[in-house]
C-alpha cells in the first residue's frame, strides 16, 4: 500500500540519521529456502473497520537510575465525508543519576474531505509538528520542526494517487541553561523552507486490472541550505498461466539523498545542533521466478534475484565509508502435497557477490595488495582492505511421515554457509578469508491424537565450523558440536485442568582443528565445553467459571568450562596432574516460581500474582575445584488487568520489582486503551 505522510516523514528522519532505509523497497530474501519469498507476494490490505477509534497506551519503566516512558494516542473518528486522523506520541528517557533526560513529542495528523476536487478527488490538510527537548547537567537544547500543507488525492480506476506539498519550519537552540525561562523563546534560531511529494499506486491492488502491483512514493524537504529527498518504488508482476504454472517478476528501488540538521549530543557532554553528513543511499533489486504447478505429486519452483546496494558520503573524507554490495541469488525449491502421508519440502539458495569499498575511486595506481597493506596509514587504503567476495549458501530439507494414531515423525536439515574472501590479504588477521558453516539435524516424534497425554520428543545434532584459510589465524579453526534432547508433555484430564512439562538438555563440545597448536609447548588452551538442563512446568486450573489458578516453575542449570585433556599439557608433568576431565569454570542455577489467581467476569479479567526468582552463580578458580557462591533474588508482585465495556477496552499491567541486588529494583507499568464506535 502507498506510504502515508507520517510513514514518509519517518523515512526522511531515518535517512538523515544515516540508518538504512533500503528495506522499504528492496525486500529481504531471508526466510527458509523452501518458502516462496515475500517480495513475490502482493501486500495484504488492512481490514477497514467502519467505526471511530481512540487508542491510548502508556508504558513506564522506572529502575534506580533509568527511566523511560512512551505514551501514545491515536484519534481516528469515523465521519461521513471526512477522514480525520490525529497522533499524539510522547516519549521520555533519561538517567536520573546523570541528570540527563530526553523528551520527544509528535503531533502528526491529517484531515481529508472526500469529493472536494474535480474527478471525485479528495482535498485535505496534513500537519507534522515534532519537538525534542534534551536536558543535560551542562545545559539543555531543543529542536522543533513543523510541516504543514495541503494534500490532494484521487483514485483513477483502482489506482490511488496523491500529491502533497507545503511549508516547513524549524526552530532550535542548543545552548540553553538547565532551568528554562523566558530566554528560551527569545533566543531560538529559526529557518523556513518547503516540502513536496507524491505517491502513486498500491502494492495490495492490481494496476488497472492487470496482474501488476505498482507503487511509488517521493518526499523531499528543503530548509535553508539543507535538503533531503526519499524516493521508493516497486513493481510486482504475478501471473498464473493456463497450465497452472505461475510467473513472477519484481523490481524495487529506493534512494535517499541529502542532509538535514538535528539536535545531537556533543563530545563535551552537552548538546549541539548538527548537520548530518550528505549521504546518498541507493538500493535496487530485480528478481524473476517461476512456480510450477504440481506434477507427479511434486511442485518445483525457482527464482533469481539481483541486488545492488550502496551508500556514499560525497563530502566526508574524514572516515571513508562509501561501500557497495552487488549480490546475485539463485534459489531452487521443491515441495510435495502437504495432505499426503509423506511430506517433503526442500530448498537450496546460493548468494554470491562482492562488497567494494570506495567504489567510486580508482585504486589501480596502487598496484598489488602488498602495496596496499604497506600503506595502511592512508585512510582510503585502510578502507579498501575491506573489499571482499561474498558467498552465502543455505539449504533446508524437511521430511514428515504421518504415522498411525496421529503420530508424526519429522526430520529437518538446516545448513548455512557464510564465506568471505578478502582480495587484499597481506598478513593482517582483520582480512583473513574465512568460512562459517552451520549444519543442524533435527528429529522429532510428535505424539498427537485426542488423548489426555500429548507431546513430542526430539533430538538435535548440530555442528558449527569456523575456518580461517590463512596461516596467521588458522590456529583458531574449530568445530563446535552441539547435542540436544528434549521432551514436551501435556496432560489434560479435563477441559478445566492442564499440566505442561518441557525438558531440554544441551551439550556443546569444541574441537580445535589444529590441536597441536593449542598444546604444550604452547600455552595450554584446552577446548571449551558447556552444558545446560532446563525444565519448565506450567499448570492451569479453572476452579470455577469465575476463578482460574495458574502456576509455573522453571529451573535452569548451566555450566561452562574446558575439556582438560592430557594432550594439552607438558607430558613430563601430566603424571602428577589431574587430566582428562571436564574442568568447570562457571556454574549457575536459576529457579523461577510464578503463582497467579485470576478473576474472570463478563466485563474482563483481573489477575493478581507474584513471581519469585532465585539465582545462584558459582565462579570457579583455576584449579576447577574451589568456587565462590553468589546468590540473588527478585520478587515481582504484579496485577494484570483486561477490561472491556461495549467497544471500549483497557489493558494494563503493573509490576513491582524488588531485588536483593542494589539498583535493580523498580517499577514496570504499562496501560493501553481503545475505544471504537
Amino acid at each position, binding site marked *: 500500500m502507498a506510504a502515508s505522510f507520517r510513514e514518509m516523514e519517518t523515512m526522511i528522519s531515518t535517512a538523515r540519521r544515516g540508518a538504512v532505509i533500503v528495506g522499504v523497497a528492496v525486500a529481504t530474501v531471508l526466510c527458509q529456502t523452501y518458502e516462496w519469498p515475500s517480495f513475490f507476494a502482493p501486500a495484504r490490505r488492512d481490514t477497514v473497520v467502519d467505526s471511530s477509534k481512540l487508542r491510548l497506551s502508556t508504558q513506564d519503566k522506572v529502575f534506580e*537510575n533509568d527511566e523511560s516512558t512512551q505514551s501514545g494516542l491515536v484519534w481516528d473518528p469515523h465521519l461521513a465525508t471526512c477522514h480525520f486522523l490525529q497522533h499524539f506520541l510522547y516519549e521520555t528517557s533519561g538517567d536520573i543519576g546523570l541528570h540527563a533526560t530526553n523528551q520527544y513529542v509528535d503531533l502528526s495528523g491529517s484531515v481529508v474531505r472526500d469529493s472536494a476536487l474535480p474527478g471525485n478527488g479528495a482535498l485535505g490538510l496534513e500537519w507534522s509538528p515534532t519537538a525534542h527537548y534534551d536536558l543535560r547537567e551542562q545545559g539543555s537544547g531543543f529542536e522543533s520542526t513543523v510541516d504543514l500543507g495541503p494534500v490532494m488525492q484521487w483514485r483513477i480506476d483502482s489506482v490511488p494517487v496523491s500529491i502533497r506539498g507545503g511549508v516547513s519550519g524549524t526552530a532550535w537552540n542548543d545552548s540553553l541553561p538547565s532551568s528554562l525561562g523566558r530566554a528560551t523563546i527569545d533566543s531560538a534560531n529559526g529557518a523556513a523552507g518547503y516540502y513536496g511529494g507524491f505517491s502513486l499506486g498500491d502494492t495490495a491492488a492490481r494496476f488497472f486490472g492487470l496482474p501488476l502491483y505498482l507503487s511509488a512514493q517521493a518526499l523531499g524537504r528543503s530548509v535553508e541550505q539543507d535538503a533531503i529527498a526519499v524516493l521508493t518504488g516497486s513493481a510486482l508482476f504475478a501471473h498464473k498461466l493456463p497450465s497452472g504454472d505461475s510467473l513472477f517478476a519484481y523490481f524495487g528501488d529506493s534512494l535517499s539523498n541529502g542532509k538535514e540538521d538535528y539536535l545531537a549530543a556533543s563530545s563535551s557532554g552537552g548538546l549541539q545542533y548538527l548537520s548530518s553528513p550528505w549521504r546518498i543511499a541507493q538500493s535496487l533489486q530485480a528478481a524473476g521466478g517461476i512456480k510450477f504447478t504440481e506434477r*507427479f*505429486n*511434486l511442485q518445483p519452483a525457482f527464482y533469481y534475484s539481483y541486488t545492488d546496494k550502496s551508500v556514499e558520503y560525497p563530502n566526508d573524507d574524514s572516515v571513508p565509508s562509501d561501500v557497495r554490495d552487488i549480490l546475485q541469488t539463485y534459489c531452487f525449491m*521443491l515441495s*510435495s502435497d502437504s495432505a*499426503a*502421508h*509423506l511430506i*517433503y519440502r*526442500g530448498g*537450496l539458495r*546460493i548468494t554470491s557477490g562482492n562488497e567494494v569499498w570506495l567504489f567510486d575511486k580508482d585504486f589501480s595506481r596502487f598496484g598489488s595488495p602488498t602495496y596496499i597493506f604497506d600503506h595502511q596509514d592512508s585512510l582510503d587504503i*585502510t578502507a579498501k582492505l575491506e573489499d571482499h567476495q561474498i558467498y552465502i*549458501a543455505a*539449504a533446508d*530439507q524437511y*521430511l514428515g511421515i504421518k504415522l498411525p494414531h496421529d503420530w508424526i515423525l519429522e526430520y529437518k*536439515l538446516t*545448513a548455512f*554457509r557464510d*564465506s568471505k574472501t578478502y582480495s587484499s590479504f597481506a598478513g593482517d*588477521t*582483520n582480512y583473513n578469508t574465512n*568460512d562459517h*558453516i552451520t*549444519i543442524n539435524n533435527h528429529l522429532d516424534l510428535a505424539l498427537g491424537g485426542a488423548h489426555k497425554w500429548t507431546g513430542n520428543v526430539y533430538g538435535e545434532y548440530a555442528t558449527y*565450523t569456523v*575456518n*580461517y*584459510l*590463512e*596461516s*596467521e*589465524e*588458522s*590456529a*583458531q*579453526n574449530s568445530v563446535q558440536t552441539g547435542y540436544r534432547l528434549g521432551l514436551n508433555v501435556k496432560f489434560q484430564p479435563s477441559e478445566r485442568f492442564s499440566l505442561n512439562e518441557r525438558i531440554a538438555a544441551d551439550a556443546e563440545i569444541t574441537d580445535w*582443528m*589444529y590441536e*597441536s*597448536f*593449542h598444546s604444550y*609447548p*604452547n*600455552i595450554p*588452551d584446552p577446548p*571449551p565445553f558447556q552444558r545446560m538442563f532446563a525444565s519448565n512446568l506450567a499448570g492451569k486450573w479453572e476452579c470455577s467459571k469465575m476463578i482460574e489458578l495458574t502456576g509455573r516453575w522453571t529451573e535452569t542449570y548451566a555450566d561452562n568450562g574446558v575439556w582438560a585433556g592430557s594432550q594439552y599439557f607438558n607430558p613430563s608433568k601430566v603424571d602428577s596432574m589431574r587430566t582428562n576431565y571436564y574442568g568447570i*569454570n562457571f556454574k549457575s542455577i536459576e529457579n523461577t516460581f510464578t503463582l497467579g489467581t485470576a478473576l474472570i467476569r463478563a466485563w474482563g479479567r483481573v489477575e493478581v500474582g507474584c513471581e519469585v526468582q532465585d539465582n545462584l552463580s558459582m*565462579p*570457579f*578458580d*583455576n584449579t576447577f575445584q574451589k568456587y565462590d557462591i553468589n546468590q540473588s533474588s527478585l520478587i515481582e508482585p504484579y496485577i494484570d488487568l483486561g477490561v472491556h465495556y461495549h467497544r471500549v477496552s483497557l489493558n494494563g499491567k503493573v509490576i513491582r520489582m524488588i531485588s536483593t*541486588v*542494589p*539498583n*535493580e529494583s523498580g517499577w514496570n507499568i504499562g496501560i493501553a486503551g481503545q475505544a471504537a464506535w
Partner: protein
Amino acid sequence: MNPRVRAIFQKILPASLLAALMCSCGIFSPRQSQTPNGNGTTDPLNFSAIGGTQYPFPTLQYEDLFQGDDPIYNDENSRPSTKAALIARLNQIANAYPHIQVNWTVTDWIPNSSDDSVTVNVGKYDIILNTSTNPSDTAGSGTAIFILVQNAGWHISSWTDYPAQGVSFFSPNYNQ
C-alpha cells in the same frame, strides 16, 4: 510397483538428489586451510592473566580481545591511541621480542553491577624483554586499570596504562 511405494520413491528421490548435490559440490564443506604459522595460539604478552579464571577471554586474538569504542587504550603519559594502532603495536612487540615476558599482578577484580562490567586493578606490571638471555632486560613497569565487558565471553573494553616513567612500552606512541 505399488502406487504408494512409487509415491514415496518420487518424494525421497529428489530429496536424496538434492542432498547428494549439496554434499558432492562441497557447498557446505570448509575450504582447505593453511597450517598455522609459528607456535599456534600464544599469549606472548600474558593477557590471559588480566581475566584470570573468573573472567576468561574466549580468544586472545587482539582483534576480538579488545572490543569497545576508541580510544580503548589510554597511556597517561601520552596521547590516546586507536584500537588499530594498539593492535599493530602489540603485534610489533610480540614479533620483535619472541622471548618477552609480561607479569601482571592483579590486585582485585571488581564487578560493576550497574553495567555488568568488571574493573581489573593491576597493582604492578613488569615487562622483561628477553627471559632466555637476560632476565633483568626490562622495558618498563607500571600500573594499569582494565575494564572487561561481556559479549559472548569476556573482552577488554578499556585499558588505562600508568607507566612508571615516560611513554609506555605498550603505547603506539612509544619511541625506542
